[in-house]
């Protein structure tokens, strides 16, 4: 998809907050918009950097992501991991009802 640079607006901040699963109070939106706008305009200087000349532009700057063998190995176990769950019932994590409860978006 084509990509473009645009001034950060209240609408963009509202949309990005929704994607981020964050709620920003309406009275704070202009402050967030102003701050993010200043940061994004500073970031816009990367436009002036020429693309890499030797064809490795897409290569990871540090190193290609290594991939380990897909082999099973022991972990901490279900009980140890479950100890940090905010809510559990009979060894399962409890979450609000997802299907048929109007919980979707």
């Amino acid at each position: 998809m084509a990509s473009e640079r645009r001034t950060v607006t209240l609408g963009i901040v509202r949309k990005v907050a929704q994607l981020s699963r964050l709620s920003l109070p309406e009275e704070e939106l202009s402050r967030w918009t102003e701050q993010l706008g200043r940061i994004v305009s500073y970031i816009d200087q990367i436009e002036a950097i020429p693309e890499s000349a030797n064809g490795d532009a897409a290569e990871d700057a540090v190193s290609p992501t290594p991939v380990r063998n897909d082999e099973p190995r022991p972990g901490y176990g279900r009980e140890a991991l479950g100890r940090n769950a905010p809510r559990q019932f009979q060894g399962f994590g409890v979450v609000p009802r997802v299907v048929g409860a109007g919980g979707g978006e």
Partner: protein
Amino acid sequence: MSGLARAVAADVAARRRSAVEIAAESLDRIERANPDLNAFLEVSRDAALEEAKEVDRRVAAGEPLPLAGVPLAVKDNMWVAGRRVSCASRILEGFVPPGDATAVGRLRQAGAVFVGKTNLDEFAMGSSTENSAFQPTRNPWDLSRIPGGSSGGSAAAVAARLVPGALGSDTGGSIRQPGACSGVVGFKPSYGRVSRWGLVAFGSSLDQIGPLTRDVSDAARIYAVMAGADPLDSTCAARPVGDPEGALERGIEGMRIGFLAEGEVEGLDSRVAENLEACRQAFERAGARVSVVSVPRATAAIAIYYVVASAEASSNLARYDGVRYGARRSDGSVASLYVDTRTRGFGAEVKRRILLGTFALSSGYYEAYYGRAMRARRVLANDFERAFGAADVIVCPSIPAPAFRLGEKVDDPLQMYLSDIFTVPASLAGLPAISIPSGRTPEGLPLGLQIMAPRFGEETLFAAARAFEREIDFPSDPPPAARPYAT
């Protein structure tokens, strides 16, 4: 005690002093100093004394331990088995890790004793430690100033001589910048040298664990214990660590020291500029060949960094949703559980980075921001490769100005981000980099010099750092906050 990790380890190994006695002394100092400094979020007296007892038992059994009985503090974004990890955030409330971070486990095996968890900017996002959800840490050299960040608690704890060493994590300068602000050594290894297992993720292509210490040799020892391949982190390089401690006294006769041309930015604090000249003379006295080298895109590093790191942060922090661990703030629908938990659990700076990262990755903006930043990162790394053709190490100030006052930059995030202008380039290129105390301002505030080496060139880096440290002769008197008990 002299306070250096090597001296402590030698005393304990020779049974001149017990690990329990040393741990108790460190814990007593923490208890005395922490109300002023706010360096620690949690102090583990009973657990630390038990660990020290175990070290004494191992020493008595004849086990050689390179860090026998050395009290260490750990930034509170790393796992220490059985002790809570908060990342200085309310969202991780109550989280207790199931084991040690790999780096912590290796230090434990080497005889270190973990006295407590130190304060940080929430999720390591910040340059002043003011973004902690719990408390701001104060600089032991001047309690009205910041200690740097995000590993500010670790830097303050070492500077105030509460512990001989501490672990920090560095994504864009979070070990080196607080090291410089607080007058201690801060070392970030090459990306891939130290396992990230058990380090709570912020920017996964940038994060590295490293030590903060009072001198370069202690940093080399702690690093040597932690470094090396780990099956639990596939980005941890399977290449020999070498002999960092053995490299310390190599000297730098004939070594090519490149002063970063882009390090002399417009508006550089005059005290920093004067100090840089003293640093140049120190290298010359040590027999090095000094020149100026250019890394042209270093000036754009902050812009590149805030796209890449924020994008990775927005992805990494998506896991904090109130379902699997940490705080849960709602019992409504799943959607409100996510939103309420995150909105009430994260502080302002973390939200800012998540918003920025989500923006840079969102449809319509991805190519213009994230794609472009990734290519610019490659160009910057190429700039460094070329510069290392003309210099064995590259140096520049660690910080553009000495530690600022608490509250001075909290309302101006961009100005806060620019505090890391000299540390971010090495992070983006995956290079090892160290900040060494290089002098003090007339007001007594510490300054730091940063040395960068080619990736995996830690031995060269330590040789240069040790030679510089010897020449610059940073005064060894303790900071004002440590004077009541420091020796």
